[in-house]
């Protein structure tokens, strides 16, 4: 049971990363402007876009990592709750 949950979670992550990757890199957006936005500014926004995506993905991973570390405690807590 636990194993299937883990696989489901992993699949979910892969999907999220994939969606973000696609979102950052592949959508069509014919932006237009009469001013010159400047390549420097666009490149840093591409970078920022990637970073913000990365931070969100890392945050999700971090929750998992934290869970692994907190696992023994959370088990204890669970038992405690059950005892009650």
């Amino acid at each position, binding site marked *: 049971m636990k194993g299937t949950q883990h696989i489901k979670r992993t699949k979910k992550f892969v999907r999220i990363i994939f969606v973000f990757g696609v979102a950052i*890199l592949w959508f069509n957006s014919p932006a237009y402007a009469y001013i010159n936005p400047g390549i*420097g500014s666009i*490149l840093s926004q591409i970078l920022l876009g990637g970073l913000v995506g990365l931070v969100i993905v890392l945050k999700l991973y971090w929750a998992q990592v934290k869970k692994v570390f907190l696992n023994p405690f959370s088990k204890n807590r669970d038992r405690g709750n059950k005892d009650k």
Partner: protein
Amino acid sequence: MFEEGLDPASYRDPSGRVYIRDGRVFRTVMPYASGDFEYVQSTGLIEELEKEGLIVESKQVDPAILGDEIAGACYVIEHQRLPFISYPYEWSFPALKAASLLHLEIQLRSLAKGITLSDASAYNVQFVGPKPIFIDRLSLRRYQEGEFWLGHKQFCEQFLNPLLIRSIFGIPHNSWYRGALEGITSDDLVGLLPWRRKLTWKILTNVVLPAVFQKKATKELVAEQAKSYKNRKLPLITFRRILESLKEWISGLKPADTGKSVWSDYAKTHSYSSEELGHKRKFVSNFIESLKPKLVGDLGSNTGDYAAVALMAGVEYVVGFDYDQKALEIAFSRAQEERLQYLPLYLDAANPAPDQGWAQRERKGLNSRLTADAILALAFTHHLAIGRNIPLPELLNWLISLAPHGVIEFVPKSDPMVKHMLNFREDIFQDYTEERFLSYLESLANILETEVVSSTGRRLIRYSRR
């Protein structure tokens, strides 16, 4: 106000142009922008911003009103007229900050309605009193899913970098900005920044990286990026995050030089006793009450004491001018706190803002913009006559040219302030006497009333131009 006809400053954006007709301000909407104009209109954003006074009020009028001159325009809108057009190089630090925050606020609110701003020009912000107001209705257009913030570079050059040079180095933006009308480039700013500043996250991502990328981008890289650019996307969440973090950052910016200046304490340290001050205020107040001017220019406005007196006496709007940054900042905060229809601006009176920009017609000089009904020049003329060697006849001629009526204060050589100014220099001002001052003034204007208002012999003179 501006000259009649096509506004020479509105050439950049093909969306439309600005026309002045009989003192009224019109904006055309060309076919290029009509779809966006209609979309923005349908979202209700404009009414929302107008209601809160964040955007200039406008109404649609019959295009025939402008005749053949605007052939091809789909719509014509008429804008509310503003009392005075000012430029970012005349704004104080808190004014530029308020304008920046308004730009970000409008950009954020627009995004929530599927709209974005096509540029980030600081000249699209004006002031009514200390309140910034957005004036370019046609910069608002449909947001395309995933598009980049195309105004980021312009925002940094015209808002952020000028604020940073003051908040990091204590250098006021005004002179630099006036020389570089498009703002302070990130490249220039990066050249000044110490390493530890360059590496702070916000400066790194908004200033340093764009400047470095811009500089290092080879022709090949630009060509390659241009190919894939259309396929790339900035997620809306990131776009919003960039705007929100800039808003947060700019809200907390303060000038680095927070000490007192010569003039910021003037209201407490000037050479008047409180009784004398009462006389001076009464004189100004009487002048305003009898003349009933609508727009007053206050030269040497300092922290806004006499602007406040004039407003109390019934003036509708006061534009103040001073060259002391601290005094301007105090004046601006005061106008905000007391909700005064008063806008204090930076001016070095010996070098007023000129006609400049494209064809020297884009940004107007002070004289052609200031159409004041009256001026106040209190404790002002000696700074030019003695401090800057401006000959009295020329000085008075300039002052009288600014408005048909006014009050000027003459500060004699016996006054401690003038004595202080002459402490370390030869007195080459044989001409600088009350008698000469009055006779020069009389050759240009009718002197209506004078009164000595201090024990040191300072005299207020009320005049009307001949």
